[in-house]
Structure formats: C-alpha cells, structure tokens
C-alpha cells in the first residue's frame, strides 16, 4: 500500500488535539500526525481538552479517546459541542460496537474509529478538513 500523503500547498498547518491518557498511544498518534504535517497538541483526559477550549484554544481536528480518568471522551465531546466547538471530533477507542460506543457517537462525534489508529485513518480525515476549509474561503 502506498504511503498516505497530504498536499500541503501554501496552506497554514492544520492543528490536531490528541486526547488520550495512555502515553504510548499519545506518542504514536503524535508521530503519525507530525508525518502528515500537522501541528500537534496533547491532552491527557477530557477535562484538560475542555479547559483548553475554555481558555480560548481551538483546533482543526480532535482525536478523542473514550476511556479516560477524570472526564471520559463521551462527556468531553458533549461539553465541547455544548460550548459551540464545531471542529471535527473523531473518536478513537477500543470499545467495539455497543452501548458505550453508540453513546460516544451520540455525544457529537463526526466519526469513530477502533484502535489501532494509524496514518492511514488520519490522512483521509486531514484531506477532508483541508477541502472543507478551501470551500469556506
């Protein structure tokens, strides 16, 4: 399979917020995102993600884990949408299809992927965001 690539053109870098409490997953997702030319930020749980947005931060893409301490992905997604955050929020979870995953999607996700999540999942999402941004100019 050919390596996924992104046509960067002259556009500003897209930013991604990786929300996951597992440090090995943070590092992996970070490297995939850097390879695709994204600016990467990390939050260890849903509360940190929500607090970042409350303090004025914004991101083009949010990769949201579900099972996290303090505030899980479902709660965080619900709060972000209630705050008016309209960035693409993509769930990345080890939960299979079931009530937890359905509730997670219902909280306001744009999409939900099962772990392991790689650049082959990330690249098409980034391309979609770029196309949306181009159309809105």
């Amino acid at each position: 399979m050919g390596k996924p690539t992104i046509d960067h053109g002259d556009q500003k870098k897209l930013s991604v917020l990786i929300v996951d409490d597992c440090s090995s997953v943070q590092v992996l997702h970070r490297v995939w995102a850097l390879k695709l030319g994204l600016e990467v930020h990390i939050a260890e749980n849903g509360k940190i993600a929500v607090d970042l947005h409350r303090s004025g931060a914004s991101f083009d893409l949010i990769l949201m884990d579900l099972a996290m301490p303090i505030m899980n992905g479902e709660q965080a997604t619900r709060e972000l949408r209630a705050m008016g955050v309209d960035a693409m929020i993509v769930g990345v979870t080890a939960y299979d299809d079931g009530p937890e995953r359905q509730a997670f999607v219902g909280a306001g996700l744009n999409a939900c992927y099962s772990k392991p999540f790689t650049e082959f999942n990330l690249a098409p999402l980034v391309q979609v965001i770029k196309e949306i941004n181009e159309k809105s100019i």
Partner: protein
Amino acid sequence: MLEEGILDSQFTQLQGLQDESNPNFVAEVVTLFIKDAQKIINHLSYYMSQEVVDFSEMDPYVHQIKGSTSSIGARNMTLACSDLHQASDAKNKEMCLQALNKINHEYCRLQVKLHLIVQLQNTIFTMETNERLRGSRYAAMSMQRRFPRFKVLFGFISSFLFFQLLITKHK
C-alpha cells in the same frame, strides 16, 4: 515473532517510524507501553482481588489495556484483553481471573521480545552511525590507505546475523 503472534503488522508500521530524525522512537514507545500496561494491570489485579468485583468500575481499564496493546501491535496480548472484556461483560469473576492470568503471561513474553528488539535496533543504529562516520573519514583519506569497503559491510552483516540468531534462540 510475527509467526508466533506476539506482534503483528501494527508493530512493523511502528518500527518504520524510526529514522534519523527519531532514532529512539521504538525504544520510547516500548518503554511507555510497558509503563502504561503495568499500571493498568495493577488496577485490574486490584479489582479482581476484591471479594465482590465492581465490573463497571473495572470496565474502563479493560478497554484502556485493549486500546494500548492493539495500538502497539501486541497481538496475543490484545486477544487476551478481548477475553477479559467478554468475561467482564458477562460479569464472570472466574473467567476474568483466567483472562487476567493470560494477559500477565502474554505481557511477560512480550516484554522479553520487546527488550530484545530494542537492543537489536539500538545496536544496528550505532553500527550504521559508525559506518557513516567511517565512510566520511574514508572520503578524506588517500586511495592507498582506505580499507576495502566490503570488510566493513561484512562486519556489519555478520553482527546483524549474530543478533538474529540470538533472538531465534530466545524464542
């Protein structure tokens, strides 16, 4: 290791991310994974040690370890985590204990393999770096004083094969 099912193609992809700009990537991810996994296993062991298991409190940890093992490509351990998930969903303490034992067993096997891989990758990286340094020194030397390049390459290949044999012996 791929044939044994300990690691799958996800780990191969992860190895592919290590390069000159990220020379310690595999070691970094492996170290973090082992730390994460041990913490989660400790939590799971705590819940399973209770007379009455709180399966709903335990559930997030079951999914955390499944997510972590699948992300690194630890195939057998991920399968054991799926067993724990099913047992936990069924609220069957006995099945959960069996699954947790399996997770511990696969975790021990995995740690041994991962440490060997990290050692080998570090050795290869060091040898490649030394080879490059030697190569740049050779370029500055006169033609008569240069060693035949094949001797250096032969030494590198021999060492690589030696470590491959070590890994095979440890299987």
